[in-house]
């Protein structure tokens, strides 16, 4: 049992990262019922944005450069997300559901290829700056400074988002648009603007997640958005897609499950070859299947019983 605290901390850091990305899926789905499959690539472009800022500031210590990298990463992610909404999804607003879905997949491939082709030396993974050191918390419990970043950033982002949706005028308009877009317009709400704001918030979270992912792994590449996006989408579904707290909860549950699978499954007699890092993705999706069997609406999802 002595590995438990360490496993929880590792899982929490991974899960917070998934949660940040999952917010992007859940915000957009909640308001336009679109699975934005290009969201993983929005994270990826943010990572390259943050890296670019770091390369502009040679010699600056990472701790000092980090805020600027965050701004750079978020700016790129928000711009890509808002542009995707304006030019790819908005023209298809009244088209059959499959059209924007396929557009999202196309956009995801296009963004990967654009970075591959035009970002300098992006055909191979590029190193991302890391702190590389760790703190001793208690006894055997250590925490990487690179993990600490996401453990601090994710709760702050969630607090801000929770306040924004519940208290601000735009947040209220966002809830109204999610529940009944036509009637929201009758209230005087410019729903096109509200949808753009939802994409922008998802983009901002993607930018933070991009920096967190870069710090954790020390390398970024044009394909990094795929599996990260898939995991985050899983987290969003797990938590109940459309619910922002569900997205973060789903991310944390998924992260801890993965960390636990890595640590513990190899200790179960007869399952030693099913443990370790190689099988963590399998256990993540097993968890998803089990949760959806028991609670199809996800952990915090509401049963969809709208409209009389």
């Amino acid at each position, binding site marked *: 049992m002595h590995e438990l605290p360490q496993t929880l901390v590792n899982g929490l850091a991974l899960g917070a990262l998934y949660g940040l990305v999952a917010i992007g899926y859940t915000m957009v789905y909640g308001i336009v019922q679109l699975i934005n499959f290009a969201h993983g690539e929005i994270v990826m472009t943010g990572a390259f944005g943050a890296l670019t800022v770091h390369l502009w500031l040679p010699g600056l210590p990472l701790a000092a450069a980090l805020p600027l990298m965050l701004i750079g990463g978020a700016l790129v992610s928000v711009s890509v997300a808002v542009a995707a909404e304006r030019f790819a999804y908005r023209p298809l607003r009244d088209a059959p559901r499959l059209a924007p879905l396929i557009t999202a997949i196309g956009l995801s491939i296009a963004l990967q290829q654009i970075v591959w082709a035009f970002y300098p030396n992006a055909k191979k993974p590029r190193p991302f700056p890391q702190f590389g050191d760790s703190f001793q918390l208690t006894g055997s419990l250590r925490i990487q400074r690179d993990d600490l970043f996401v453990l601090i950033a994710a709760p702050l982002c969630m607090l801000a988002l929770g306040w924004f949706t519940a208290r601000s*005028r735009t947040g209220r308009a966002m809830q109204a648009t999610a*529940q009944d877009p036509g009637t929201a317009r009758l*209230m*005087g709400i410019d729903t096109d603007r509200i949808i753009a704001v939802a994409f922008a918030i998802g983009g901002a979270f993607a930018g933070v997640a991009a920096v967190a992912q870069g710090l954790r792994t020390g390398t970024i590449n044009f394909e990094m958005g795929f599996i990260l996006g898939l995991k985050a989408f899983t987290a969003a579904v797990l938590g109940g897609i459309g619910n922002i707290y569900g997205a973060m909860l789903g991310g944390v549950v998924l992260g801890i499950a993965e960390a636990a699978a890595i640590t513990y499954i190899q200790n179960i007699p007869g399952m030693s070859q099913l443990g370790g890092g190689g099988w963590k993705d399998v256990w993540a999706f097993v968890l998803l299947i089990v949760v959806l069997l028991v609670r199809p609406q996800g952990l915090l999802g509401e049963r969809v019983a*709208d409209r*009389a």
Partner: protein
Amino acid sequence: MTAPLLEVTGLRVAYGKIEAVKGIGFTVEEGRIVTLIGTNGAGKTTTLRTLSGLLAPRGGSIRFAGRPLAGVPAHDVVALGLAHSPEGRHVFPRLTIAENLQLGAFLRRDKDGIAQDIKHVYELFPILGERAGQAAGTLSGGEQQMLAMGRALMSRPRLLMLDEPSMGLSPIMMQKIMETIARLRDGGTTILLVEQNAQAALSLADHGHVMETGRIVLSGTGAELLHNEKVRKAYLGED
């Protein structure tokens, strides 16, 4: 005579190739109740949705308070003083009653005025005040109708459009809603009322128009239509 508050001429609206409204014209004078009655599919709701900007007209003109309304997006129409309580009530189900009312005043910035108007709605419909913190989706149909009307009033409209406020309500609840509409008119609100319940609507209205498959086939004062033989046969179930 001053110009009417709302003036619709030759209005045509189509869904793809199907024309739902085929060139109708009517006016609504300030301080009056005007009703459009007719069966399902007559084009009444389509007309209201076009007036509030949710649908684009194919032809004709709409003038509201002296300015053309065609082409103004829905979210700007309410700012001009035209509020729409939609068919089927469409309250925001997961927001509270108070939040629904706040959204009705979305474009207003006068906090004190909004608070005062919310109080006024609670006076009009005391049950809403008692349940202010309750999610709108948990209300009964009649209560949701009250909320939808109250929410539309929160923009302080010059013209209030009500689409089938009596739909699905018990007779007692319906009477209550109709009384409220009369009170609103007496308080100076101009009302355009769409109803399938012709008896109730015509008893209340200053003017009525009967719609059939996209056209106005009969117009007159409420009393005239109420005593019109054709109307009695077709809409009041007499033979």
